[in-house]
């Protein structure tokens, strides 16, 4: 297809019988090694390699943190103890986890349809804007306000990804660029709102007026927000979709090979649209969770860091919804740790982004060992 997007071309060939027989030779320190693609590796070994990569990534990150001025012995204390054992910090992690889980699921679902949804932040922004609009314009009675905000957030997030989805499916427009451009546009629109018409008249700061009590996601007691319950329910939904429903099988085929899927009667377009629109809806929901659950208003920079986090979570979890939930918790912990590192040791928050990138680099590189095998070849000639 002449109009295949860059992203489609950039995917390495999924394993198939021909790919199984790929060999390359590399003179390596005088000996010849053959590089082969593995047919199969047990999931236990895969998990081991993944864990090793994570450790390497964390070790490198720790080294950088030490170089940036964090005392080494404090590191273990900070990350592990403070984050998980301290009650208040743990609540903060759970708080942070809800939107993380949602963007992680959003990323996973879109990537399963081979759609690089890098517009998670833009969809979050619009989700929050939608919910805020319901609040600002006081749409609906008090009892229905929160569900209406919820619906508005889903709708807005979904609509913001509809354009790129349609453009890719109908015209072959590269979705990496289109979703990213929409991110920037959404961010600017947000600034336009919070610096303009939606600015809080009370103190003239660039955020919207505070949500009323019934417009906020309720607390469940012990300071835990119900946002996490919302996220858990969405995770269950995603698990059902991918693992139990028929659409999950269709999605697996579309992910493996869209041409084969189509030739075998899978409704490819509908499946891709479904997955991508759901992805946008979940990201919009994440925006709602932050605005209504955490901030309590529309702020100008609430979405920062979630975009790459979503990609990271989906990538580490191999697009599996349940794994994504676990990974999202860990990333939330990373965020919380990052904030306290910022407060106590003046380490800039961009450190978190750097650590995330290092982990992605390590895990992506470790995939090499899962997919390939190095063998020494070409011994002395047999006489």
């Amino acid at each position, binding site marked *: 297809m002449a109009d295949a997007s860059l992203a489609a071309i*950039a995917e390495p060939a999924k394993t198939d019988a021909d790919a199984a027989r790929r060999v390359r030779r590399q003179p390596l320190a005088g000996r010849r090694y053959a590089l082969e693609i593995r047919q199969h590796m047990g999931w236990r070994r895969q998990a081991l390699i993944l864990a090793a990569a994570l450790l390497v990534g964390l070790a490198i990150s720790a080294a950088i943190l030490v170089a940036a001025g964090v005392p080494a012995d404090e590191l273990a204390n900070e990350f592990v103890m403070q984050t998980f054992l301290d009650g208040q910090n743990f609540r903060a992690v759970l708080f942070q986890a809800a939107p993380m889980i949602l963007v992680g699921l959003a990323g996973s679902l879109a990537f399963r349809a081979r759609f690089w949804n890098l517009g998670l932040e833009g969809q979050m922004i619009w989700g929050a804007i939608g919910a805020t609009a319901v609040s600002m314009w006081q749409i609906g009675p008090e009892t229905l306000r929160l569900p209406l905000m919820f619906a508005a957030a889903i709708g807005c997030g979904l609509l913001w990804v509809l354009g790129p989805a349609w453009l890719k499916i109908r015209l072959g427009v590269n979705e990496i660029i289109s979703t990213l451009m929409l991110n920037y546009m959404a961010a600017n629109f947000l600034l336009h709102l919070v610096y303009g018409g939606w600015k809080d008249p009370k103190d003239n700061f660039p955020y919207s007026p505070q949500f009323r009590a019934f417009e906020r996601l309720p607390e469940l007691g012990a300071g835990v927000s119900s946002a996490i319950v919302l996220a858990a329910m969405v995770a269950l939904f995603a698990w059902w979709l991918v693992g139990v429903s028929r659409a999950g099988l269709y999605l697996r085929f579309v992910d493996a090979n869209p041409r084969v899927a189509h030739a075998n009667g899978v409704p490819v377009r509908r499946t891709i649209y479904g997955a991508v629109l759901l992805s946008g809806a979940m990201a919009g929901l994440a925006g709602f969770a932050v605005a209504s659950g955490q901030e309590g208003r529309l702020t100008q920079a609430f979405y920062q860091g979630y975009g790459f986090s979503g990609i990271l979570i989906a*990538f580490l979890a191999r697009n599996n919804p349940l794994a994504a939930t676990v990974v999202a918790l860990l990333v939330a912990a990373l965020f919380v740790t990052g904030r306290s590192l910022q407060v106590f040791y003046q380490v800039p928050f961009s450190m978190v982004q*750097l650590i995330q990138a290092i982990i992605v680099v390590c895990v992506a590189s470790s995939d090499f060992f899962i997919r390939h095998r190095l063998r020494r070849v070409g011994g002395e000639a047999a006489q």
Partner: protein
Amino acid sequence: MSSAIALNWLASTPDFAVPYALAALGLIISERAGVLSLGAEGLMLVGALAGIGAQLALGQPAVSLVLAMLAASAVSLLFAVMVIWLRVNQVIAGLALVFFCQGLTALVGSLAEWTNHATEGIGGMALWPLSLLPGVGRLFEQNAMVWLTLPIFIAVAWFFSRTSAGLRLRAVGENPQAADAAGIRVAMWRLAAVLAGSALVGLAGAYISVVSTKLWIAGMTGGRGWIAVGLVIFARWSPWKALVGALLFGCIEALIPQLAAAGVQLPQYFVMMTPYAVTLGVMVWVALARRGGDDEPGALGQPYVREERR
């Protein structure tokens, strides 16, 4: 619009166009060899930071620009190893590179306290005798880097179309199997392309910080790297079309302050959306206008492993 504003607009266009042009050219070099480089946004930041850092330390713009190019090349080595030898998915590797660079530059910039320190820029150069023309003469007074961009383009275009080395590089990007069978070392050529291309991308970033704004702020490239990626698609991997596209974007960006000066009242943030909206529009237009016959390098984005056929 008065003629003074129009002149200001045209005169300031090259300054905005140069980063797009250089970044797009760097991407074309790497993509012609078959390596999809999405890390442009990050590499531009690295070049920008390195350029300012060198400038603050040494005060020599030419040296700073060269150091910026070297820094971007060095960082791109990580990306090159990942995609060429470790066969990592080029999209993931590119994204990881961007976020790695964003985090790294923000971190180093704040730790070294380079943020918001103004430096002196590079001198201007008038293109005599055209600069003597009344009125339009101002168009030909640009800084040295603007004039340097053109020879760089000529050199790269000539390399691709008129040298045997350029032929080899293109072969690597079109059909690595054929190149390999011809005895060409695919991995080495791809590495060279990535390093060289990244140097240009770093130069583009350094231009923004050292020449244009003369300071460093975290994230200052503001998506230009991504726009450059779109620009390369628009340009069908041809350096000259990329230059045209860069000028187009330079025009658009240069228009924004001129409109304000002309007293045209537009919502500020909508105006700032323009480059991104235009990029999106350009991508759609390219997709609509495409009618088969791709100029896309045949093996773009695919890691190369020697294959056996059945």
